[in-house]
């Protein structure tokens, strides 16, 4: 009986530790999520392309820093035009800041002139928890082989001030540029900065 209890505990601990399992250099976990137009996306269907995941909350001052300055839209446009798949992921639970319906998200994308490949609606927080997404924004880059090559902040200046953007080092662009040039990513992880992701309690 006691032994079973211990086995159970060990298995639970293993499950918990695998929850921390998204690591740079390892395979990015597969997901299946519906976007704001009702289309289902899986990570594996983008094998052969670089993929960017951008955690998003339209009311968070750190997200607003990068949208009201048009920085995020510029990055989306630049990288999708170079064949990168860019997913905005919204893990806010219903009733929490940043939660949007499909229609509200489409209006927002239009209003902000944002052009991600798709906006994934993750109100249950499954994709967020799978990737341990902590903040908005929190950025991930996956290479064409499906390996995670960047996990962290959007850039090097952890503030809400738009004036910091031009002098900050953008880690997402840096990771993509280096990886496309066949070089190792010089900053593969950093502390993501922003508001906490508003998961369901």
């Amino acid at each position, binding site marked *: 009986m006691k032994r079973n209890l211990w086995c159970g505990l060990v298995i639970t601990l293993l499950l918990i530790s695998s929850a921390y399992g998204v690591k740079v250099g390892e395979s990015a976990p597969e997901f299946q999520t519906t976007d704001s137009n009702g289309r289902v996306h899986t990570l594996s269907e983008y094998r052969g392309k670089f993929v960017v995941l951008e955690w998003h909350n339209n*009311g968070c*001052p750190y997200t607003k820093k990068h949208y009201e300055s048009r920085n995020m839209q510029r990055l989306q446009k630049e990288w999708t035009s170079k064949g990168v798949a860019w997913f905005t992921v919204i893990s806010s639970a219903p009733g929490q*800041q940043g939660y949007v319906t499909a229609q509200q998200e489409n209006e927002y994308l239009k209003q902000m002139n944002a052009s991600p490949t798709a906006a994934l609606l993750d109100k249950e927080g499954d994709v967020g928890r799978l990737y*341990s997404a902590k*903040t908005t924004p929190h950025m991930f880059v996956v290479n064409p082989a499906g390996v995670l090559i960047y996990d962290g902040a959007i850039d090097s200046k952890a*503030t809400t001030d738009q004036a910091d953007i031009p002098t900050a080092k953008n880690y997402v662009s840096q990771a993509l540029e280096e990886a496309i040039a066949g070089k190792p990513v010089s900053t593969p*992880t950093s502390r993501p900065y922003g508001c906490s992701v508003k998961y369901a309690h």
Partner: protein
Amino acid sequence: MLNRSFIQSLGILFTSTAWFISPTPGSADQPADEHVKLELVSEQDVLVPGKDLWLGFRFDLQDEWHTYWVNPGDSGEAPGIEWQLPAGFQAGAIQWPYPERLSTPPFADYGYEHQVLLMASVRPPAQLREGETQKIAARVRYLICRDICIPGQTQLELSLRVKSGAAASPAGELFRAARARLPRPAPPNWKISAASIRDEIVLDVKTIKSAKAPQFFPLHAEQIENAAPQAVTAFPGGIRLHLKKSKHLLKSIPRLEGVFVFASGKAYLVDVPVFQSRRSGHTQ
């Protein structure tokens, strides 16, 4: 406080403008100072030429709101202070009281609820004329969060008269309370060491027999998993705290710096090299 009400009315002005142009439904375009009162206070009522003076930034937060420690943890941002000092004045570093662990499962932040005083010493030059008044000012940028976050910034100032002898100010009690929360150097008979073993950094403290619910707060981000439980085990002559390494830690860390806090509220500074255990099968 004329200055404050001026800033507040500015805040209202900005809010109403933001309301019209706000492109984001459901966003929190309310000024942060509706939820926090910020003040610059001095431990002494006067300035003594050439003598350190303790000043403090006092945050008085509404219930449920918090601001952040120097390492904010998984989200958030520490307050930033830009001094505007008269010529010849020098400010020391902010002394951060130990924080609370603010749990937002599956993550954790480090910060302060209710009230906190962020102290710093300021040294005026030796050649100041008695009787003159000096203005010390600072711009504070901060983030406060509840379920939502609001950034704020405030200009604070304080005028002090130069006198040859010090006189305690009514704010003295705030400083005494804040000092009780500042981490101090560990007693010399303690032996603190750290080692990297597999997916843990273990922190050993020798010559203390037991400790009720000690907690370690890392000074640097992305060294340990902030929300992971910190298990305590005993060994002959000491205790061991088990810290789970951050998944963002791709290289071994040479030193572990932070604050070790006991349930009693006593807090000690930790700054030790991290021994790389051979038992550790991989560097991660």
